[in-house]
């Protein structure tokens, strides 16, 4: 049976937190990449950042998100890749998200998709879907996921999977 869904690596943030979770030397063995993450920021900004091949340049995106009461859609020129829980959210509450990058080894610009949510014991939390473009043509060999303006709190996790078409 062909291997179509393979775990590549997992990181769990230790005591004291960390500035980013890095997946380096990503093998070119798969068709697509899937990153599942459960994060909490040490700051009050819920925005997830994704650097590709150590670059935060040439990203554009658009999103649709709600905060528990209103709905908004934006477009932006940045690597904003979803929302996760923050320091002011309920203790022990973490976000949940998934980031899908098809054709990550292709020599074309890379499009990817994110669905991600923050959570807390309040009526206010963020749920959103995000479509992004990284306008560079290099094969993706490195991903860094982090939070805008803060560190990743202890027990934040990210797991990278390789997806094959056959």
């Amino acid at each position, binding site marked *: *049976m062909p*291997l*179509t*869904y*393979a*775990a*590549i*690596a*997992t990181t769990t943030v230790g005591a004291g937190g960390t500035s980013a979770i890095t997946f380096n030397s990503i093998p070119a063995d798969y068709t697509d990449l899937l990153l*599942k*993450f*459960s994060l909490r920021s040490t700051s009050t900004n819920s925005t997830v950042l994704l650097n590709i091949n150590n670059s935060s340049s040439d990203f554009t995106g658009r999103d*649709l*998100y*709600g*905060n*528990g*009461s*209103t*709905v908004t859609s934006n477009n932006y020129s940045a690597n904003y890749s979803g929302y996760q*829980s923050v320091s002011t959210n*309920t203790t*022990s*509450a*973490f*976000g*949940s*998200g*998934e980031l899908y990058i098809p054709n990550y080894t292709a020599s074309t610009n890379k499009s990817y998709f994110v*669905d*991600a*949510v*923050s*959570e*807390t*014991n*309040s*009526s*206010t*939390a963020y*749920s*959103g*879907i995000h479509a992004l473009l990284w306008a560079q043509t290099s094969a993706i060999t490195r991903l860094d996921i982090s939070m805008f303006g803060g560190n990743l709190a202890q*027990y934040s*996790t990210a*797991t990278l*999977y390789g997806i094959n078409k056959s």
Partner: protein
Amino acid sequence: MAIVSIKNKTKSGSLLVGNSYNIPPAFESISTATGTGSSGTITFSSIPSGYKHLQIRSIATSSSSYGMIRFNSDSSSNYVSHFLYGDGSSASATGLTGLTSLYGPRADNSTYFSVGIVDILDFDSSTKYKTIRVLTGQDANGSGLIMVNSGLWLSTSAITSITINTQSGNWATTAQFALYGIKEL
């Protein structure tokens, strides 16, 4: 010491002797369940450890609006849900606290199927409250909803059982639920 392949007689310094290394699949079926027509409850019990994440996929008809998710039979007010949804003409967002179960996949039409995918990351963590993320919706030939929902179970207990209850009535015999385990390396 050179290793000789029994299969093709090649020599190698590796025990793999020219064969590619084996990576086990990360996405596995744990269990499936089908509605009985006489019960409003679907149960996945004795969920094994050994996985990093869980995913539920559903296709369902019922007279309920949602499948309501409860973990480890906890019926106290330990649940929070948030919704982002559109009905084909407008979009809205809502948050609810103090719930006795989480809003899961849609299941609100007795004729047209609703579809849902529920992700439960770090389900056996003993340090994190459990967050679910739900993509769900249906088109009922003139009405319907598309939703991105989330939910929080205010507990650090590892999830060992999941029940999905209708809000009223029974699961149709055509309602199907599948529980998958997703491994880490």
